């Protein structure tokens, strides 16, 4: 081929004889292209271009180069850049051409600039004046070029300079200028939305422009604006409908027809706008039914572009408020798409089905055979889209078939992006709908080995979390774990060198945790298998750490093996490994220590944590004595660092009014007014969130030391314990018979497909019990997945409950469970566990909180039985109070408690003979729950035994003297806010504290505007509802502080922002801000 070109090109000079000058110029490019085509290797090309570039460099710097030559050089430079070579020395000349040249030079110059430079390039500044000049030019072409370059590349901060000129162009007599101006403004809007806010009215004018072309351009803007906030443009629905009606009705000039379809691109744009406007809005949707119907009807001509319109129509019909008649037509359209022999239409049909299937599962059923055919289609894109569709229709009955199809696809797929995407979906489906343990484990094995290290980290994390936390009964969890252990042992016995690291990590964690469940397997065998892995070269050092942690966990009693291993690793290059080997050795030699550090099975909560690190006191004092600098916490260091820079960084110090006022100017700045510190804290939040999301890894790799010091308390909250109070029904197992396994039968292929169809689409039918929409409601989920961040601790709250008699409970643990459980309010079991802390903490204080009103308001002796029930035995029963006096019950509070702030007395429940009421008292260090038991009968009740089942606290059994048992259920769940206490600090202290806190959350809340001072009213309302302390209110900002019973503070910074209250919360606790925020929202909503 190259010699043909050569022949061609050598023939060229003859043609140019008459015009030597021009020929010479253009010849250079020809020469270049010709020589490039002659070359055979990339290397030669590189050399040639390098020569060419240096020649060009010489030429551009020569003063004799004419403008024409310059133009030609520019084109050559573009060519070189296109091939990927750097021609940056020409950039400045491109700008020069645009600045100085005539029209032709300008054109090349502008083109080169828009190809070479990006928005942030500094040279663009040199262009601004030229653009300004050209925008003002009376020459149409110059103005056009300037507008074009403005829309392609323009520095953001220079927009204000050209904005007025571009705006003026909106009323230019020439249609093409107006149109380009509209698009340039749209571009400005995308880059810097607030700079064009004031010209929204002009956008409307553009929409009403007499030229349909300008109107079309303005739709770009409206599509974007409406996508951002559909509500603000509802009033324009009528206009858009009218425009579409006119277009569809053929009112536009014939020029706008494309293949005799009137302005198809305009129609597409309008349909998109309408669907955005009509989404979830019945009245707006009603306006457009007619025109949608018309579009559907008119678009039945047969050109590609009509299908584009139809597709948009169908999507619009399914997006807006449904109308049966239209839906029916749209469904028919989808059918036509799906059944079309045109592959592009089939693709769109599948896309439409995927979109629609959530509304109308029947449609998928109708086209099941086509879908099956698409599954085996030769086109990769079609296959992928089909799987996407299947993903949407998966239910508990067809999950095995669909997942199998997906895995088949994945095995032959080599596109990284697709693999990541799809593997995540398989994992999601497996978790949601797994029919049984072995299938689940097997599928996850496939996921890990196929997805490998491309997998997103949350897939293995979720899986391990699921294994660790379990869901329902302990036996079932153990069964699942057992399956996993068995399956992994089998995998490890085979070839392991090809396994992805992530899979190895999962396996080692599971084996470390649960290998002991499998009694039939010798632990030595497990150790041997894991040790083998360590010897493999392909295993990364991160994985080695996982494996070693696993070994540490199962090493008990196998001292000989372990010592060998520790010996061999103690010379490892990797310091982490070496440290672990040391730990391993120590632990294996001291079984008591091992038992204490790594207790097997459930009782994680038994771990005693010396969070004050007192055992290091000796070391510290020695070091101090030896002259070491005392430890400073990070925030203190940060503060000092800031002080060094001689800036006043105390946000709420004496300079407060100043900083606050400037703060409100700069809007959304940190109250510290310090981008440095806010940036830092932002980072730390991110970090800690990251750490939060990877808690599982930390669990697995028993890290003892971390950034913040000794870590094991973390583990105390995280490890697997099943929730003792889990009230969820075990899922009804899907009968295996229901699923028809697709076993290919070569003779009857069609029947085969039918079978596949029936297994794929099972559960989708009308008569089927499973409703597709009901993904959320219907299918009993195999693995109940708990809300992410809270799960580990909500289970730990259960365990801490069990150990409530243990005197050494870490207070941190308590807070955690409070926090998390309060976030989980909809889950009764968990929220009650928060409540449980009351008995614990009060009994620890030696105070009885269960009082019998009949009992002379005298404190009872309460006993804790079995750790989870409190029995109160009143000695005598004397007075009688009719149940109606419950309002006076507070008067009956014991004297020492009377002065405490308390909630209203709430009547919990009653039956003919007894009534129960409760009242919460807020003590600084505890929440007291006082339960009033009133006798409603005339007879004296003797010997009332109150049995309070703390675990669930749903039922309280009362045993009367007669021996009959009354079971009264406590319908009322105590509020979690009960554990919040005001934190009294000064503004200055607040400022210091603010800096030191890392976890922050920001949100806008409702402002109570009904009073004169909305901020004060709102804060007072919050104060009353949540027991907060309002530290200070300055102007439009207020600062509020509170703390948990256990001491964790939470600081709230509020600022009036229009009609909303911008609230910024900070706390050392990751979840506390969210929790407080939630309660603030509730309190304000109730107000």
């Amino acid at each position, binding site marked *: *081929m190259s010699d043909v*070109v050569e*022949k*061609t090109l050598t*023939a*060229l000079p003859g*043609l*140019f004889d008459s*015009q030597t000058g*021009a*020929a010479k110029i*253009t010849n250079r490019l020809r020469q270049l292209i010709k020589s490039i085509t002659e070359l055979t290797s990339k290397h030669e090309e590189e050399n040639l271009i390098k020569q060419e570039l240096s020649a060009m460099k010489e030429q551009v710097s020569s003063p004799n180069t004419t403008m024409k030559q310059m133009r030609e050089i520019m*084109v050559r430079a*573009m060519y070189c*850049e*296109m*091939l*990927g070579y750097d021609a940056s020395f020409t950039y400045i000349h491109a700008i020069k051409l645009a600045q100085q040249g*005539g*029209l*032709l030079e300008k054109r*090349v110059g502008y*083109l080169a600039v828009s190809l070479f430079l990006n928005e*942030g390039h500094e040279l663009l500044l040199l262009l601004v004046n030229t653009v300004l000049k050209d925008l003002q030019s009376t020459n*149409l*072409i110059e103005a056009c070029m300037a507008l*074009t370059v403005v*829309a*392609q590349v323009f520095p953001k901060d220079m927009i204000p300079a050209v904005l007025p000129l571009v705006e003026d162009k909106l009323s230019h007599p020439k249609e093409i200028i107006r149109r*380009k101006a509209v698009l340039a403004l*749209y571009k400005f809007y995308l880059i810097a939305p607030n700079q064009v806010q004031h010209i929204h009215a002009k956008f409307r004018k553009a929409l009403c422009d007499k030229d349909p*072309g300008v109107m079309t*351009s303005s739709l770009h803007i409206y*599509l974007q604006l409406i*996508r951002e906030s559909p509500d603000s443009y509802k009033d324009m629905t009528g206009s858009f409908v009218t425009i579409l009606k006119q277009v569809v009705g053929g009112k536009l000039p014939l*020029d*706008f027809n494309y293949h005799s379809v009137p302005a198809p*691109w305009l129609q*597409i744009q309008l349909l*998109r706008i309408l669907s955005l406007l009509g989404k979830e809005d019945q009245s707006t949707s009603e306006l457009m039914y007619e025109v949608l119907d018309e579009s559907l009807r008119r678009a039945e001509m*047969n*050109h*590609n*572009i009509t*299908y*584009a319109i139809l*597709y*948009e129509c169908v999507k619009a019909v399914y997006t807006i408020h449904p109308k049966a008649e239209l839906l029916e037509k749209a469904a028919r359209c989808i059918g036509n798409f799906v059944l079309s022999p*045109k*592959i*592009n239409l089939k*693709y*769109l049909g599948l896309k439409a089905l995927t979109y629609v299937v959530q509304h109308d599962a029947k449609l998928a059923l109708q086209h099941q055979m086509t879908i099956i055919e698409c599954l085996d289609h*030769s*086109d990769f*894109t*079609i296959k992928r889209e089909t799987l996407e569709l299947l993903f949407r229709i998966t239910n508990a009955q067809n999950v095995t078939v669909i997942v199998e199809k997906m895995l088949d696809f994945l095995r032959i797929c080599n596109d*990284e*992006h697709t693999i990541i*995407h799809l593997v995540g979906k398989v994992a999601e489906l497996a978790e949601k709908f797994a029919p049984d343990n072995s299938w689940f484990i097997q599928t996850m094995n496939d996921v890990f080995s196929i997805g490998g290290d491309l997998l997103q980290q949350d897939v293995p994390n979720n899986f391990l979390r699921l294994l660790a936390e379990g869901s329902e009964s302990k036996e079932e969890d153990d069964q699942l774990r057992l399956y996993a252990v068995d399956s992994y042992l089998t995998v490890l016995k085979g070839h392991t060198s090809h396994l992805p690291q992530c899979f190895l990590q999962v396996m080692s964690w599971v084996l470390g945790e649960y290998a002991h469940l499998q009694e039939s397997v010798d632990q030595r065998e497990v150790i041997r298998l894991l040790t083998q892995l360590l010897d493999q070269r392909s295993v990364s050092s991160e994985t080695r750490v996982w494996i070693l942690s696993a070994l540490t966990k199962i090493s008990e009693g196998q001292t000989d093996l372990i010592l060998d291993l520790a010996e061999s690793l103690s010379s490892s290059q990797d310091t982490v490994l070496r440290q672990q080997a040391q730990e391993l050795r120590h632990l294996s030699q001291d079984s008591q220590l091992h038992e204490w550090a790594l207790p097997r099975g459930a009782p994680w909560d038994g771990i005693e944590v010396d969070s004050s690190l007192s055992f290091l006191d000796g070391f510290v004092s020695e070091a101090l004595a030896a002259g070491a600098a005392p430890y400073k916490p990070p925030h203190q260091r940060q503060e000092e660092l800031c002080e060094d820079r001689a800036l006043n960084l105390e946000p709420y110090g004496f300079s407060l009014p100043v900083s606050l006022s400037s703060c409100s100017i700069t809007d959304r700045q940190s109250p510290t007014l310090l981008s440095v510190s806010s940036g830092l804290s932002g980072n730390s939040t991110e970090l800690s969130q990251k750490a939060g999301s990877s808690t599982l890894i930390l669990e697995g790799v028993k890290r003892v030391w971390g950034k913040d010091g000794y870590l094991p308390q973390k583990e105390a909250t995280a490890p697997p314990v099943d929730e003792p109070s889990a009230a969820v029904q075990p899922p009804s197992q899907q009968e295996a018979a229901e699923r028809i396994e697709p076993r290919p039968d070569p003779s009857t292929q069609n029947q085969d497909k039918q079978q596949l169809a029936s297994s794929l689409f099972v559960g989708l039918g009308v008569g089927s019990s499973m409703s597709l929409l009901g993904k959320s409601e219907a299918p009993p989920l195999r693995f109940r997945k708990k809300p992410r961040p809270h799960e580990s601790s909500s289970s730990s709250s259960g365990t801490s409950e069990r150990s409530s008699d243990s005197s050494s409970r870490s207070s941190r643990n308590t807070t955690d469970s409070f926090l998390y459980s309060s976030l989980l309010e909809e889950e009764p079991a968990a929220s009650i566990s928060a409540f449980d802390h009351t008995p614990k903490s009060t009994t620890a204080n030696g105070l009885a909180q269960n009082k019998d009103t009949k009992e002379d308001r005298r404190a009872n002796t309460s006993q804790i039985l079995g750790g989870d029930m409190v029995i109160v035995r009143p000695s005598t029963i004397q007075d009688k109070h009719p149940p109606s006096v419950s309002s006076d019950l507070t008067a009956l509070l014991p004297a020492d408690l009377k002065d405490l702030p308390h909630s209203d007395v709430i009547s919990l429940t009653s039956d003919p003979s007894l009534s129960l009421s409760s009242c919460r008292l807020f003590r600084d260090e505890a929440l007291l729950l006082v339960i009033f038991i009133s006798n409603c009968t005339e007879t004296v009740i003797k010997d009332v035994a109150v049995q309070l089942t703390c675990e669930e606290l749903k039922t309280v059994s009362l045993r009367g003297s007669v021996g009959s048992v009354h079971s009264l259920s406590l319908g009322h769940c105590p509020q979690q806010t009960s554990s919040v206490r005001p934190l009294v600090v000064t503004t200055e202290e607040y400022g210091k504290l603010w800096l030191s806190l890392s976890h922050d959350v920001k949100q806008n809340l409702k402002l109570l505007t009904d009073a004169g001072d909305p901020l004060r009213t709102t804060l007072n309302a919050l104060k009353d509802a949540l027991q907060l302390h309002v530290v200070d209110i300055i102007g439009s900002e207020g600062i509020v502080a509170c703390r948990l019973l256990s001491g964790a503070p939470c600081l709230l910074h509020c600022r009036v922002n229009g009609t909303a209250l911008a609230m910024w919360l900070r706390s050392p606790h990751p979840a506390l801000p969210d929790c407080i925020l939630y309660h603030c929202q509730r309190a304000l909503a109730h107000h």
Partner: protein
Amino acid sequence: MIKAILIFNNHGKPRLIRFYQYFAEDMQQQIIRETFHLVSKRDDNVCNFLEGGSLIGGSDYKLIYRHYATLYFVFCVDSSESELGILDLIQVFVETLDKCFENVCELDLIFHMDKVHYILQEVVMGGMVLETNMNEIVAQVELQNRMEKSEGGLSTAPARAVSAVKNMNLPEIPRNINIGDINIKVPSLSPF
């Protein structure tokens, strides 16, 4: 938004590259290579859409392409563009090229890269579809060409030269961008 327009030949040689979103130079080359790799291995009878290349921004993006004889025209767009709409826009663009260059072929694109850019500028401006009407586009381009002619007629020479080249007998180069495809409108789809 259109993120990029790439034209390359069957061997992956770029013929026209236009990015509407900033990518570093080496990234651009990588995108071209990867796109060529993705597109070139697809048969002509599969659909014209490709989803989720990892380079240009993930799953929201798709490649919409057409293959004419020796050239691939690839538009990389986000989800706010209509697939079939872009497919026809490519057709409009190619038909316009055909009209401006009188039977366009790959050589025209090589030797008149700048002109092709000017035409493209009238179709897509800063990533947004500006004009879809071929006559309008041609009118705009001609307006600019008149200005060129008024500069002395020198620059018309290369065009003449190229058409001379084209008329020469060069059997081995597939010279035309499949004129048949361009002149014959997209075959109509089977009726509903």
